[in-house]
């Protein structure tokens, strides 16, 4: 028995509308899954905790929220300015590369220390490592 053409046509039209809704349900499902995967979508990338500082900016104990790239130095134009005579104007860069933190010295006078050791080339920094720039020391923390 052949299906009446009108019924078929009606079926196709309903299918078209249903498909848009099915796509929407799937797409919002993917969106929800992606959001549930990371607890806070606007979570910060990492935090530097100031352990020792000779001046009040930054104070010892202060927590500095990190961006993907953080220029550190005596200049006020740096992302993390350290008004300390022992720090160079443009001292170092702390940068997130493929999910890992790396620090690079920018040819500073007094050098950059990772866990007390002066670095010669870009070094990987892990959570808990201590950074020394001028007379300021800071510890990397992951949130």
């Amino acid at each position, binding site marked *: 028995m052949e299906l009446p053409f009108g019924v078929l046509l*009606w079926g196709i039209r309903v299918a078209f509308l249903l498909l848009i809704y099915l796509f*929407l349900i799937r797409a919002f499902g993917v969106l929800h899954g992606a959001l549930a995967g990371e607890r806070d979508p606007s979570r910060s990338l990492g935090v530097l905790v100031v352990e020792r500082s000779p001046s009040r900016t930054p104070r010892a104990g202060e927590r500095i929220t990190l961006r993907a790239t953080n220029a550190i130095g005596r200049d006020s134009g740096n992302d993390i300015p350290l008004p300390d005579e022992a720090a160079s104007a443009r001292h170092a860069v702390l940068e997130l590369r493929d999910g890992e933190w790396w620090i690079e010295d920018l040819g500073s006078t007094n050098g950059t220390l990772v866990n007390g050791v002066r670095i010669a080339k870009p070094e990987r920094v892990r959570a808990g490592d201590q950074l020394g720039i001028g007379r300021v020391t800071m510890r990397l923390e992951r949130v």
Partner: protein
Amino acid sequence: MTALLRRGPELRLLVWVAALAVTGSVAVAAAETTTFDRAQLAVPVAYVALVLLLHVFLVARGVRGDQLLLPTAAALAAIGLVLVQRLQPEDRPLLLQQLTWMVIAAGAFVATILIPRDVTALSRFKWTWALLGVLLLVSPLLPVIGREINGARIWIGLGPFSFEPWEAVKIIMVIFFAAYLEEYREVIARPRRFGPLPVPPLPYLLPILAMWAFAMAVVVFEKDLGAALLFLGIFLAMLYLATGEAFYTLLGVVLLVAGGVVLYQTLPHVQVRIDTWLRPFSEDLRFGPGFQIVQGLFALANGGLLGVGLGNGLPDRIPIVWSDFVFDAFTEEVGFAGAVALLALFLLFVYRGMLIAVRAPTPFLQLLAAGLSFIVAFQTLVIVGGNARLIPLTGVTLPFVAYGGSSLVTNWMLVALLIRVSDVTARVRGSP
């Protein structure tokens, strides 16, 4: 094998898009004739193949960014093709033209993914972008290449092709605003106050006034209300994002209203637009300038909850329905249920774009992604609002859906830029 499935969610969503494109095309074809011709499937199949090619390209290129934008834009464009097939007049092969434009748009998408190699580098040439934007914007006013179509002088023509430079200007301006606002965001750290009101520092006040003057100039010389509205709207939204000062936005809106009142008093074409919005059914307008909106409203009312069925409506009663009134035509045939689904697709797109903006690692990329999402959001709002007579009707196109080459090409470049911003985020954070 796992490398091939890296963008698995995207591929699975595209399967639904493929089903959607074929079903819609069959529904429209079946409503027109009782005999089924297999050649009619060529257009949706070609379209699906094209979108799958884009997916394969993203996988091959190793792009790690967002997997929702491509399927969502593809679903909207699929609905667009179904509608163009339905709405094309007998003497104009709009469907084939739209498919051709879709191929060009896919090429533009690929090019935007490939160049520039570093998307942040876009911020370095901000004054070049500004100059290019202004040149493109005034180009329709030039004598040889400028063209006036349907009362708006916003096209440039080269031989048989005509192009709306405004479409490209949108993206260029968002890149410029993002770079400009990133550079001057420091200024806001020291706000000066005059009583309770923050006084905008000069680097903010100047561009607000310049943008306003620019938008007004577009209305006066190019007779394009929609472009002016979008231009100012996108700028004010990005300014608010960069500064967090609602007062600046308020200032912009006050300037817009003040300018609107003056233009209404002095320019006849603005008067006609406002009058047809406020009283389209009055005797003097119903069969004149108000005819289009009146027919559109009848179509909306005819739709009901589930519509009259694809192919059963009377969309040819609306002049230029394929570019100005696709929302009304779609709603008439697929009903309120279809209209809600269509708007939900736009919501999904904009929501996703905003999430990309929130996560982007630098202020420039955040402002860029937010501005690009705003383009789609505002454009949808302005044209759907215009079609439904909530705001005055303007000649803005419904993104991805309406017939129109320049709009399709620039919107797909916009998708590519958003994917690139999310790709940078994924690489920085080390997520897949």
